[in-house]
């Protein structure tokens, strides 16, 4: 290999080493402030996108979610607390926007319904097991069978010793 082509190869390698940095620049975070972006994503993960209702605001690509993320970002820039921002959204879109709805009379069944069903299930299970125990009869041995069993037990004890 000639000296020139070695030089070329070295240059090529050096350029290849730079490639990741080139990419890194291009994939710079969308928001200027990564701290706010992190906070915004953490908050919007617990919020529902009302257009595509099974997606969170953080994960949705709907235009609506985009607008709300922008709104959240702006309010964070304006030093609003997470609670203030959530209250802002609830005032407009209702509790439905929250993936974790607050405990209040209208959501009681949602929160405690599963435990009621668990309780009903447990009671039914206990009742069923108790009834079944009563149904099973103790096996009755005749005198002859008892003696036979005793002698067999003795025999096996003798063998073990």
């Amino acid at each position: 290999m000639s000296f020139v082509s070695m030089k070329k190869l070295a240059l090529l390698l050096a350029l290849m080493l730079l490639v990741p940095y080139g990419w890194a620049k291009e994939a710079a975070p969308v928001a200027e402030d990564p701290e706010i972006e992190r906070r915004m994503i953490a908050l919007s993960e617990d919020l529902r996108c009302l257009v595509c209702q099974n997606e969170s605001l953080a994960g949705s690509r709907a235009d609506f979610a985009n607008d709300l993320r922008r709104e959240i970002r702006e309010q964070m820039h304006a030093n609003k607390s997470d609670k203030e921002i959530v209250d802002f959204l609830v005032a407009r879109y209702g509790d439905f926007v929250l993936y974790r709805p607050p405990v209040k009379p209208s959501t009681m069944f949602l929160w405690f319904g599963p435990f009621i069903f668990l309780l009903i299930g447990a009671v039914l299970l206990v009742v069923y097991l108790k009834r079944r125990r009563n149904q099973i009869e103790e096996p009755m041995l005749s005198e002859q069978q008892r003696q036979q069993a005793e002698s067999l037990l003795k025999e096996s004890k003798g063998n073990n010793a």
Partner: protein
Amino acid sequence: MTRFLLPLAAFIVLVAFLLIGLNLNPRQVPSPLIGKPAPEFRLEQLHESEKMLTSKDNLGKVWLLNVWASWCVSCREEHPVLVELAKSGIVPVYGLNYKDERDLALQWLRQFGDPYTASARDPEGRTGIDYGVYGVPETYVIDKNGVIRYKQIGPVTVEALETKILPLVKELQG
């Protein structure tokens, strides 16, 4: 016999719950804004950009605020109903042109007719957020004191107009 009745009853209850669940529309999210003052806005008008439309312009009147856009397919569906309503003169209809481009919006109104006394432009959807808009079209009935009394999510149908909106408007106009 009874050992089958209980599971059967439980199954029927389950089916009933599922049927109710299937028939609920998950898009009909009750708006927390009902009974609250309509959020304030001050926006450029669609036709005459130098004029403003504000939420206070209609104090003392019952009015409808219809959120629409030229890109919204269901808006076409409800549009003839709104045009008829506007012709009847029962209640003024104002438009909120949501996240739209001015030229396209104007062209759309030329094509399908313009039922709006005036339309306000909300190109970035900020007023839309204040009104809790998440699916265009949406229509708000606002009373004389500027309080939102009803929200129609999705297109205004003849049925919704006759059974809900018009009776409410008449009652509010009192």
